[in-house]
């Protein structure tokens, strides 16, 4: 056996989110639009899931094309060029091809040369899983500048005649750039799975559409997720009262509000700002958290440096959350 010693990781002392961007397709689809072909109506959709309108990608738009646009915006804000990025991670569960994965395709579109690249499939929790991996990569020294993209074209996987799901899911992309930092900007992830509920949301094969058992998923999301969010805050050495902004996965407005209520009753501030982007964006799975945060920022509801609590949850069932400072 060699006596050689493997050197410990020598990366940055901490990680931070240095840039954020998003892309929503141009096509706005209202509840009235859907009611032309589905047995539903505006009032029913608003009260059941809280959505007023959502965005559908065009036929020429893809997980890769939308992701690349969001990524370029995040890179511009972070002040990094393609030459700076040395790892690309894409969180997605709707890529139409098994291989190649989306991350190399997005790297190619952006002229990013030879990055470490892979996709994460943790469905609607994918962004928070990816953020943990990206932050650890800069702390370990595996990368200096990580591009993390959440991009989904859910309309490829939803039966347009399925009124339970066609009203919920939409398309879009969000992205962040994660770099090293002397002061920590990304807290540890709280993550886990509910392996006993694995079949409650699925796309069983490539010829099938998304299926979900709404009541089971709703019960789980409204009872199991708030404690995970609390755990993520504690793991970062913070209190719930330190959280400025709550950005949950935008699954259903009633789930968002239920999680927010529980966190406020557990100690979060009454003036906690809560992302409710699902109202005009729909459920975009792994894209929903960065899209929602960027849109809150654009609306002046969040400022740079504020503490964001992100929590993703969905098919698997799997979940992950952490705090980070808003770029």
């Amino acid at each position: 056996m060699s006596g050689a010693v493997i050197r410990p990781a020598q990366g940055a002392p901490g990680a931070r989110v240095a840039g954020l961007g998003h892309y929503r397709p141009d096509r706005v689809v209202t509840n009235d639009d859907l009611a032309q072909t589905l047995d539903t109506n505006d009032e029913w959709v608003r009260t059941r899931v809280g959505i007023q309108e959502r965005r559908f990608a065009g036929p020429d738009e893809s997980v890769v094309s939308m992701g690349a646009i969001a990524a370029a915006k995040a890179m511009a804000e972070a002040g990094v060029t393609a030459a700076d990025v040395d790892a690309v991670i894409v969180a997605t569960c709707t890529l139409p091809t098994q291989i190649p994965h989306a991350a190399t395709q997005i790297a190619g579109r952006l002229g990013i040369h030879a990055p470490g690249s892979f996709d994460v499939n943790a469905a609607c929790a994918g962004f928070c899983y990816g953020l943990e991996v990206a932050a650890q990569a800069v702390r370990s020294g595996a990368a200096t500048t990580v591009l993390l993209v959440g991009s989904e074209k859910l309309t490829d996987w939803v039966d347009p005649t399925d009124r339970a799901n066609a009203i919920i899911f939409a398309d879009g992309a969000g992205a962040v750039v994660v770099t090293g930092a002397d002061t920590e900007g990304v807290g540890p992830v709280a993550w886990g799975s509910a392996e006993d509920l694995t079949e409650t949301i699925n796309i069983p094969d490539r010829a099938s559409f998304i299926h979900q058992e709404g009541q089971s998923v709703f019960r789980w999301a409204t009872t199991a997720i708030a404690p995970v969010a609390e755990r993520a805050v504690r793991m970062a050495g913070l209190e719930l009262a330190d959280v400025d902004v709550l950005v949950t996965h935008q699954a259903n407005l009633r789930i968002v509000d239920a999680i927010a209520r529980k966190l406020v009753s557990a100690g979060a501030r009454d003036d906690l700002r809560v992302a409710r982007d699902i109202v005009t964006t729909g459920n975009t799975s792994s894209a929903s958290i960065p899209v929602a945060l960027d849109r809150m920022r654009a609306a002046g509801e969040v400022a740079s440096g504020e503490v964001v609590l992100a929590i993703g949850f969905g098919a698997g069932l799997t979940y992950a959350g952490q705090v980070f400072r808003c770029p």
Partner: protein
Amino acid sequence: MTNEEILPGLAEIVEEVAGVSKDDVSPEKSFVDDLDIDSLSMVEIAVQAEDKFGVKIPDDELANLKTVGDAVDYIARNSS
């Protein structure tokens, strides 16, 4: 607990979750047809009833609770 003890507590939960006046929550009422309560609100009612009455109301059992009376009977049979 007796049915008479359970009904007022259940009515309070229904009022809080669904905005239905608790005076309208009587045993013969159908949750869906009379009180206009949707499937997700039924889950919220079940979760709160579980806490309040110390019962388990799984989703497959929940589907069988068509009326307020069905729910009261179920809770009476299963509460600890």
